[in-house]
């Protein structure tokens, strides 16, 4: 997306003295800039013919990874314009082990986002504690009727497939917390396994 800026030279030399200029040289420079731009490759993206090359964090549409959703309703409550609709019911799950207690579980019945109201602030995605909501770069979901812009869970689940893998971390960045935690556990485990051996010998 970034476009190479045509070479602008400042009117002064680095030492601050104004450049000696022949009259009309500024005009000629202007002409040179436009001519140089003409010979360069254009930056136009021919969208309907070619898909645009969007950056990975593009806020196109919100996808729902519904397997992760626990119907905690945080997203619906945080949404500034109340465009997320969630219906659910409770189900009792039979005890995992015989003689155990029955568990109750939230089952998602409806998850819909009204994209005619959504302002793409991304608060729902930020707030979701279970990583069930994601930004997708998909943007071609225009409808001819405003009511059709309320998209239901199946549509939102479909958009989940268009969510790109998270971009690679910058070199030298702190490692992700999950990996750090996992490694810490693994090290602890390894240490725990090594200790008894030392004791044995």
């Amino acid at each position, binding site marked *: 997306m970034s476009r190479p800026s045509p070479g602008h030279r400042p009117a002064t030399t680095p030492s601050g003295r104004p450049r000696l200029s022949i009259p009309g040289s500024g005009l000629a420079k202007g*002409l040179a800039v436009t001519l140089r731009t003409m010979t360069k490759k254009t*930056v*136009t993206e021919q969208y309907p013919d070619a898909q645009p090359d969007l950056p990975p964090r593009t806020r196109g549409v919100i996808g729902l990874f519904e397997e992760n959703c626990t119907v905690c309703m945080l997203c619906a409550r945080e949404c500034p314009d109340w465009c997320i609709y969630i219906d659910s019911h409770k189900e009792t799950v039979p005890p995992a082990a015989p003689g155990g207690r029955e568990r109750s579980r939230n089952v998602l019945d409806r998850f819909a986002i009204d994209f005619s109201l959504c302002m793409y602030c991304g608060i729902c995605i930020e707030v979701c504690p279970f990583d069930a909501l994601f930004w997708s770069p998909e943007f071609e979901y225009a409808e001819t009727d405003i009511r059709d812009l309320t998209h239901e869970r199946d549509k939102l689940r479909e958009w989940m497939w268009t969510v790109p893998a998270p971009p690679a971390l910058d070199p030298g960045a702190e490692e992700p917390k999950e990996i750090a935690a996992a490694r810490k556990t693994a090290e602890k485990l390894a240490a725990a396994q090594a200790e008894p051996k030392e004791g044995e010998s």
Partner: protein
Amino acid sequence: MNDALDVAWRLLIIFVVFLTFPLIVGQTEHKVMAHMQGRLGPMYAGGFHGWAQLVADGVKFAQKEDVVPAGADRRIFQLAPAVALLPYLLVLLAIPIGPSKGAVGEVIDAGVFFVLAVMGVGVLGSLMAGWASANKFSLLGGLRTAAQLLAYELPMLLTAASVAMAAGTVSIPGILDAFRWWWLPWQIVGAIVFFVAGLAELQRPPFDMPVADSEIIFGAYTEYTGLRFALFLLAEYAGIVVLCGLTTVLFLGGWHGPWGADGLGWVWTLLKTAVLAFIVIWLRVTYPRLREDQLQKLSWTLLVPLSLAQIALTGIVKVVIQ
């Protein structure tokens, strides 16, 4: 009878040139301007790189409703586009593209005066439009048009007179016959002044203060829609063709070129005209619009003295070489 056929044939050719060349210049402007701004320009109409964009525009204009404002001076409002457009058609008659007798629409004895006179008439169309629209912006546009014409007509005439002096004739084919290659450096100041003044008279950017769309909403043409507006636009592009053709034949030697003197002279004329048309577009893309006072200042304090100096130089050289 044969004569009548010949005349009809010539008129037909001129008419076709009149209808196609401005469109070619317009399309080139679309594409060149786009690429100079890092864009692609029209890509769809007609299939290949949007070559039919202006045809499609024409069809669109023709379909639009023809609106005349209630407060307007109806007749004059409707007549103005024709007054703006027809002079350029007439000027095309007098521009020769080749050395043979058949390569000019009509040989006119006082050709230089003819073309300049008729081009000046075209501005009346803008004035009529500006006054008859009953719109303040249009009126401002008309005023600026008139002021600009008065300022730039003089340098244009003076430089044309300089060439006529050099050639000793005011007939355009006569000037071309007398042309020698060293006229190019001799008349270069005149050529630049003529070209710049012509641009200003056509109200092309950077001299487009009278139609400045961002401040007076296209000036005299604010109230126009549909076909009449299209005619004004066509007049602008026909004006570019005419100005480039005139500069070519008056200052750049028309059909004279380093090679291919026989039979291929018309190629030289067209080539030079095309290069000048490209420069017109190039200037439009590159420079910002001049303010109204800068416009007047440029003409009266720079172009007029320069053209007078050119006349003096022409006179001196003319006397010396005789």
